[in-house]
């Protein structure tokens, strides 16, 4: 990252760009939350987003983390298109933490909620258009012509009399011009990059080992820290014997730090990873877990099921539920679902490097939450955020795990850096720390009672959801928890697009001594599963075609879901007619984060497991900025979604401790678990673009389980799937 830092220092001589953020939305969104009370930068300071180098390379700064979702390519595409930059000479860099890089909608610098393109598409278009207008103005002045007489192409301004100047040759002059209030945006018909399949800018360096992730950071004099975490969340060391650990050459220090869930952990700092690992293994710690709830998975499911039998805090209530009592018994359906905790396990283990110099600190972190992590580090070190220089490092996945409201990894790293003042220390969470370290997709129980009308459609629906609140106790509670209901637990049910007149959804949020967190697509992981398996079941009971049944039950305003459903129907029609024997199809559709998705999965059973031969996915995400990237997100996100049905796709607890501790115990999908073929189809659209990171996840598991019903006659309602 050193090269990038140097570039930043020299950037001020070049182009100045400014624009206005959509601040109004932010204020209403975060009004109640003191953490976010400060409004975002209303005016972007000069040179924050575009830097034209003397060789005509255009460096575009990306205001959020790249961790696989492709935003480091798509946002530069948007800016470069409006700017008419030569794409073959565009370079992207990740922005450090700074107010100007806050998400225009969320008001903090972050990635989440599939917001990257949805929130910054307009922002980056305007930035590109203003940059272009300033370059044209500079050229027009130089040639003494009117700006309207100039045109731009491939990083060159052309004048009316055959003149031409490269952007690089105009940058200094343009930088001295006032930033226009507005600049005309392109007619979408004139887009040259937006809407075209574009390979990732980071493709090659991720294939030759040259790209540096946060974990790859190397600084002069840097040391490595590992932390021994309590075996039960919130426990404290009663006694520590660190003699054997300290006797290892290379071990610098062993000390207690506060850790997640208000517990106390033991940090080991050493010269190398292997030294720190061996030292940590040699620590003998007696832990005190007095007064802590010993979470236990079977007991929790029992408790959750008891709660599910009673109504919780009401999320939505309309019509009446009389039909639940009056419908004939063969027109009633009662279903209970179990979902375990799930770990994110991004491939790059969690890490943060900090050097604390007393009155300032420098941080290198693969973070989805720059603003929050920077504040947490500043607070831990007794500094102001402005005294903490925060570099955003490329991250090896995240799926929500690098967006933690309490910044527990950064707080650990900051305590260690404080003790090791003057020495840069990289804190590494090993895979064991990660798998056992909490912040899981919460476990849930759903209980649903449905009355089926004479037309086969649901005439009344009572739905109780039991699971921990993700937002409670965090700064996000103010906007996410309403009337005792965490909306991330009920999203996908409470806001369903199915037209169910008599509908009651409520939620219980028991407290459990296990930290929980958003996991790619958040509540939709379980709510989508419940809704789509139930709708398929209702369709099959009604002896209806499941696609036609959904079409009939979806409200007309569910335009995106319907468009995706219809496209999926059309694109899978041919292969659905030619199923080999022993194969079956399941369907699902779901809308979340503004994107409608539908899929059909062809499944057989091999060795008591579902074998997924083929999946057709259709998506309506508004305008697809980079269709190639949309396709990739939906192919790979489909595989990610299978995490919840693979046999070892569960985190369980026994006597307060997590049972699994690495990929041998918590085992996400490998290549043999993945579909052999996934074809992705995008609904053509001129609507504003919506997200593609989270929406691929919810549909595949219900589609597979729906296919399994056709093969086995059984509805699988407890995840992960045990042997079939």
């Amino acid at each position, binding site marked *: 990252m050193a090269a990038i830092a140097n570039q930043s220092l020299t950037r001020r001589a070049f182009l100045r760009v400014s624009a206005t953020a959509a601040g109004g939305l932010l204020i209403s969104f975060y009004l109640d939350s003191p953490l976010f009370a400060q409004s975002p930068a209303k005016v972007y300071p000069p040179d924050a987003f575009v830097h034209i180098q003397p060789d005509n390379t255009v460096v575009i700064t990306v205001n959020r983390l790249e*961790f*696989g*979702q*492709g935003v480091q390519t798509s946002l530069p595409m948007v800016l470069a298109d409006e700017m008419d930059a030569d794409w073959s000479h565009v370079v992207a860099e990740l922005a450090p933490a700074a107010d100007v890089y806050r998400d225009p909608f969320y008001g903090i610098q972050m990635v989440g909620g599939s917001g990257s393109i949805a929130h910054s598409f307009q922002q980056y278009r305007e930035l590109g258009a203003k940059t272009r207008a300033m370059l044209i103005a500079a050229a027009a002045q130089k040639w003494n012509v009117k700006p309207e007489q100039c045109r731009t192409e491939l990083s060159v301004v052309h004048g009316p009399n055959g003149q031409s100047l490269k952007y690089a040759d105009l940058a200094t002059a343009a930088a001295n011009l006032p930033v226009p209030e507005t600049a005309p945006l392109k007619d979408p018909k004139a887009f040259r990059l937006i809407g075209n399949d574009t*390979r*990732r800018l*980071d*493709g*090659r360096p*991720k*294939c*030759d*080992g*040259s*790209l*540096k*992730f946060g*974990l*790859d950071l*190397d600084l002069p004099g840097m040391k490595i820290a590992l932390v021994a975490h309590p075996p039960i969340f919130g426990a404290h060391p009663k006694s520590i014997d660190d003699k054997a650990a300290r006797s290892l*050459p290379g071990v610098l220090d062993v000390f207690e730090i506060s850790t997640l869930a208000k517990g106390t952990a033991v940090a080991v700092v050493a010269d*190398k*990873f*292997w*030294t720190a*690992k*061996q030292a940590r293994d040699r620590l003998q710690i007696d832990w005190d877990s007095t007064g802590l709830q010993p979470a236990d998975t079977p007991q929790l499911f029992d408790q959750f099921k008891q709660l599910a039998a009673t109504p919780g805090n009401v999320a939505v209530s309309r019509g009446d539920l009389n039909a639940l009592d009056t419908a004939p018994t063969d027109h009633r359906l009662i279903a209970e679902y179990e979902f375990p905790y799930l770990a994110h*396990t*991004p*491939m*790059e*283990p969690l890490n943060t490097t900090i050097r604390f110099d007393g009155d300032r600190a420098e941080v290198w972190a693969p973070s989805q939450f720059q603003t929050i992590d920077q504040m947490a580090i500043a607070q831990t070190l007794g500094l102001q955020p402005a005294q903490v220089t925060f570099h955003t490092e490329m*991250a*090896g*996945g*995240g*799926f929500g795990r690098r967006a933690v409201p309490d910044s527990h990894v950064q707080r650990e790293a900051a305590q260690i850096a404080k003790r090791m003042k003057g020495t840069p220390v990289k804190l590494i969470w*090993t*895979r*064991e720390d990660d798998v056992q370290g909490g912040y899981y997709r919460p476990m849930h129980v759903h209980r649903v009672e449905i009355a089926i009308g004479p037309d086969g459609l649901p005439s009344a629906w009572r739905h109780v959801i039991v699971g921990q609140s993700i937002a409670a106790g965090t700064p996000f509670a103010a906007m996410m928890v309403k009337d005792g209901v965490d909306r991330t637990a009920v999203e996908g049910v409470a806001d369903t697009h199915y037209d169910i007149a008599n509908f009651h959804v409520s939620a219980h949020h028991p407290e459990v001594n296990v930290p929980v967190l958003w996991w790619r697509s958040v509540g939709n992981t379980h709510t989508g599963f419940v809704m789509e398996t139930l709708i398929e079941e209702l369709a099959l009971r009604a002896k209806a075609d499941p696609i036609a049944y959904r079409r009939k039950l979806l409200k007309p305003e569910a335009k995106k879901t319907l468009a995706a459903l219809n496209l999926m129907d059309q694109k899978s029609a041919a292969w659905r007619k030619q199923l080999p024997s022993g194969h079956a199809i399941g369907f699902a559709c779901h809308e979340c984060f503004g994107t409608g998705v539908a899929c059909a999965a062809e499944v057989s059973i091999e060795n008591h497991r579902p074998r997924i031969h083929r999946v057709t996915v259709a998506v309506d995400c508004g305008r697809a900025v980079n269709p190639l990237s949309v396709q*990739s*997100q939906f*192919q*790979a*996100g*489909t*595989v*990610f979604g299978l995490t919840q049905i693979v046999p070892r796709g569960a985190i369980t607890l026994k006597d307060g401790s997590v049972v699994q501790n*690495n*990929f*041998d115990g918590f085992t*996400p*999908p*490998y*290549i*043999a678990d*993945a*579909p052999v*073929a*996934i074809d992705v189809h995008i609904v053509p659209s001129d609507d504003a673009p919506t997200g593609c990171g989270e929406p691929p996840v919810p549909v595949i598991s219900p589609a597979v389980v729906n296919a399994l019903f056709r093969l086995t006659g059984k509805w699988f309602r407890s995840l992960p799937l045990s042997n079939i």
Partner: protein
Amino acid sequence: MESYTLTINGQSKQVTVDPSTPLLWVLREELKMTGTKFGCGISACGACTVHVAGIATRSCVLPVSLVGDRPIVTIEGIGQDAVGRAVQDAWVSEDVVQCGYCQSGQIMAAVALLKSIRKPTDSNIEQSMGGNLCRCGTYIRIRQAIKTASQKLL
């Protein structure tokens, strides 16, 4: 501490480390070759895959003391090889990567596969690549890129 002479990507390298140190950490910390990744430390994910005497090997569980004089090839050197280059090119042209963290290991596993089977079937691919985890889930494109590289090499 012991001294070892390792042959890595055709070059001789001297290191002095604890004999139990896994090759992975010798590469990453002693030699600053960070293209080989730490994912699990128990040979369960394949992010640390390198070639040891031509065999795809999990460097996270191979103590440096057991390497001996076997030549090591890492992601940084695999492009010097015709098969390695073809696989890297196919990975780029098929736009395989997302977060990219596992892809060094995936590429090393794919090169080993194509060196032993020039035209692998889907089942060959699943067997050879079966222990390499991609949390993003890029397997569809990994499969396609192996086939693309295979065609180039035939």
